């Protein structure tokens, strides 16, 4: 789990680790189910060493990580502010697939259209999974919004594959 995410989840109020986990689960829905429960505590320990959070043992049983209440330090607040203001977006990894088609066609390693077909089947399976997850999620929940993002991206990828198919089908016919 990215450190800044855990920090930002703490920004609301000082919290136990399990409260942060509950916030994550709420926001991620079915996508949060595969998450390793211990991960958040590992991250919190690192953040504490880095001076971005401090912890205080709350009443009750000692020595259970669950018993600690974590809070942002001033440095932690600063980091969250920077992260929220930062503009970042994952790079779409299209060039590799594009070059695969170009190289496969040039060296006659494989029919580019067959490669496109195989890729499309894989994307459709993913879209099916995302769509099914979205259908069981209550409308307008946080998790539904994330699933919609996945669905829209897969749809965009599928549209690009259509363009790839048109392009390579045309070249085959023309040569």
């Amino acid at each position: 789990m990215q450190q800044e995410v855990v920090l930002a989840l703490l920004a609301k109020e000082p919290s136990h680790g399990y409260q942060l986990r509950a916030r994550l689960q709420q926001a991620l829905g079915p996508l949060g189910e595969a998450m390793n429960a211990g991960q958040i505590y590992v991250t919190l320990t690192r953040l504490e060493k880095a001076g971005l959070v401090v912890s205080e043992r709350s009443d009750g049983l000692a020595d259970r990580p669950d018993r600690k209440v974590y809070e942002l330090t001033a440095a932690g607040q600063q980091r969250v502010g920077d992260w929220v203001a930062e503009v970042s977006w994952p790079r779409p990894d299209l060039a590799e697939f594009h070059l695969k088609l170009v190289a496969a066609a040039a060296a006659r390693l494989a029919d580019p259209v067959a490669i496109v077909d195989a890729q499309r089947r894989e994307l459709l399976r993913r879209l099916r999974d995302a769509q099914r997850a979205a259908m069981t999620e209550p409308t307008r929940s946080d998790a539904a919004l994330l699933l919609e993002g996945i669905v829209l991206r897969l749809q965009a990828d599928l549209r690009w594959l259509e363009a790839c198919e048109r392009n390579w089908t045309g070249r085959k016919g023309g040569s």
Partner: protein
Amino acid sequence: MSDTGTTSVLRACGLRKEYGKGEGLVRAVDGVDLEVAPGETLAVMGPSGCGKSTLLHLLGGLDRPSGGEVELAGRRLDQMGEKALARMRRHAVGFVFQAFHLMDELTAVENVELPALLAGSSPRAARRRALSLLEQIGLADRAKFLPSALSGGQRQRVAIARALANEPLVVLADEPTGNLDSEATLEVLRLFESLHEAGQTLVIVTHDTRIAATADRLISMRDGAFVDETRLTGGTTGHLGALAGLES
């Protein structure tokens, strides 16, 4: 009906539809072979003009083929007279269209009961069935609303309920989410899913990958012919996290 030995609800063989002549000849459907099993959800995808709507019209008896065979419940639609074909359409097929095609001056329940009335049901039986269908699609409280008072997703759900009025063997849907936003698309997909679970046979032509991905089987169509077929299986959310940038 089972005496033909077929287990398909819908079957096409060498199906063709041509328009125009000579240089202007268009082969809208060009030699399609197809079998649809009972309870199957089949999606046919392709770009506009690939012939998928024409194909749907041929499968539902809305249009006559130029050649080849089309068989619904073991009966050859291509050899049927007009009267028998109209009867078959009314009783065995439910159509769903992109633009809903609801009657604007009729309420939701009146729209839904109309096919049953046309097929000779008593008004009471037709109304009872229509109300239970509206209940099933979650719009019982909108029964007396005119289509103009419903959202796009609600209108399409009413149109789907209407398609089910005569308990058709197959529902044929032409771009059913073409006019809908993302949320309304989900409403319609959920409804199709519940029909699928209830064993309804569905054939959907679309260029919406969201619908296509929820079908059992997906056929890609280009220039009037089938070019690829995918059977979609699976159903885990295990790798979805990776798609959203979450490490697992």
